């Protein structure tokens, strides 16, 4: 068994490496062949697998919903339209419950977040070796990670967008002065405490996108890691672990998508309200 360990470690590492395209330190552009090469590319590199799958799933989501939206009518809905209306109504209710202002952006934003993240998470349920094997054998790609939300870049990209929206709405609703006041005169409303308040509020503000991104990433990363660990086991017993974990994971991926959506709504509604 000891001899298998290096192989297992290799296998796990291999599965956790994205397909990275960027500039090698020597100046040439290309796809990283090893993890070392990938990290050497620094910031100006891009994960082709994450981008490809997330955009593909985003387009799938919008395509499906657009079909239903075009057909949307007062008549009794059927099939896809029924499902889409269910989702829209669910998101609309969630937004109405926690967001009391008026905004045309927040409800569609929440819908996009929920469905898109759910679809990206859903990729976690595809057997871990399935698509990477195809990518390797047919397209000759060394690394391939199909779950975009197990890439910190993807979740951070989402949460930073939400973060900018928080700042945008805070300034739009309260003005720059109001927003500055909110950051400096809370929780202690005295001029002396301004530096302390500012540090406290900044931490709170910055914690929002970071916690959003890390929560989603952490849950999905851990989930995928367990799938990979199960995949190391002899093939005959894998099902005994992977099936229960996959069933449990259905809950996790839905819940994480929902949490991300709800927290986005809550943060934005906080940005809209005066304290």
């Amino acid at each position, binding site marked *: 068994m000891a001899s298998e360990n290096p192989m297992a470690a290799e296998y796990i590492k291999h599965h*956790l490496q*994205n397909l*990275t395209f*960027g500039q090698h330190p020597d100046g040439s552009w290309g796809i990283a062949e090893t993890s070392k090469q*990938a*990290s050497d*590319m*620094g*910031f*100006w*590199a*891009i*994960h082709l697998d*994450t*981008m490809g799958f*997330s*955009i593909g799933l*985003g387009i799938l*989501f*919008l395509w499906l*919903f*657009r079909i*239903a*939206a*075009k057909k*949307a*009518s*007062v008549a009794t809905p059927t099939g896809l339209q029924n499902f*889409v*209306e269910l989702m*829209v*109504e669910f998101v*609309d209710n969630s937004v109405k419950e926690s967001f009391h202002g008026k905004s*045309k*952006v927040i*409800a*569609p*934003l929440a*819908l*996009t977040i929920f469905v*898109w993240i759910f679809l990206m998470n859903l990729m976690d349920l595809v057997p871990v070796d399935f698509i990477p094997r195809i990518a390797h054998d047919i397209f000759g790609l060394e690394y391939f990670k199909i779950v*975009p939300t197990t*890439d*910190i*870049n*993807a979740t*951070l*990209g*989402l949460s*930073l*967008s939400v973060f900018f929206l928080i700042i945008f709405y805070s300034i739009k609703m309260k003005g720059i002065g109001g927003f500055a006041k909110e950051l400096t005169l809370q929780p202690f409303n005295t001029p002396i405490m301004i530096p302390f308040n500012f540090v406290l509020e900044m931490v709170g503000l910055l914690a929002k996108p970071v916690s959003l991104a890390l929560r989603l990433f952490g849950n999905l990363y851990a989930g995928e890691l367990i799938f990979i660990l199960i995949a190391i086991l002899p093939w005959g017993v894998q099902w005994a672990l992977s099936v229960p974990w996959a069933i449990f994971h259905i809950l996790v991926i839905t819940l994480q998508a929902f949490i991300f959506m709800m927290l986005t709504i809550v943060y934005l509604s906080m940005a809209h309200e005066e304290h």
Partner: protein
Amino acid sequence: MNLNLTLIGQAISFAIFVWFCMKFVWPPVIAALEERSKKIADGLEAANRASRDLELAQEQAAQILRESKDNAAEIIEQANKRANQMIDEAKEQVIADGKRLREAAQAEIEQDVMRAKEALRAQVSVLAFAGAEKILGATIDEKAHSEIVEQLAKEL
């Protein structure tokens, strides 16, 4: 697990997806939902109104039925009265006719009697002459004695 351009790429695609969803997906679906809920509310209201109308109509129908029953009873009563009247009239007519006929018959009978009496009177004079002839055995001058006989006949 390197932070790199993917982050910005994700943010951009996220923004585009949200924009698309906001522009082309959300409004038609939510409009349809709202319209449907409005239609359902209207339908429920219409149903309520219809049941109220039905109640009213039933009441009206009962009222009309009652009125027509009253009318019918009245008409029947009138008809009965009229029939009785007609019967009475017919009876009176018959009685009057009978009386008239009887009177006519009586007058005729009286006339006949009178005629018979006249005839008899005439015959009596003839008979009287014949009787007298036989008794006297001689011819009586009819012209001389007819005056006396006629006087006699008148007395009869």
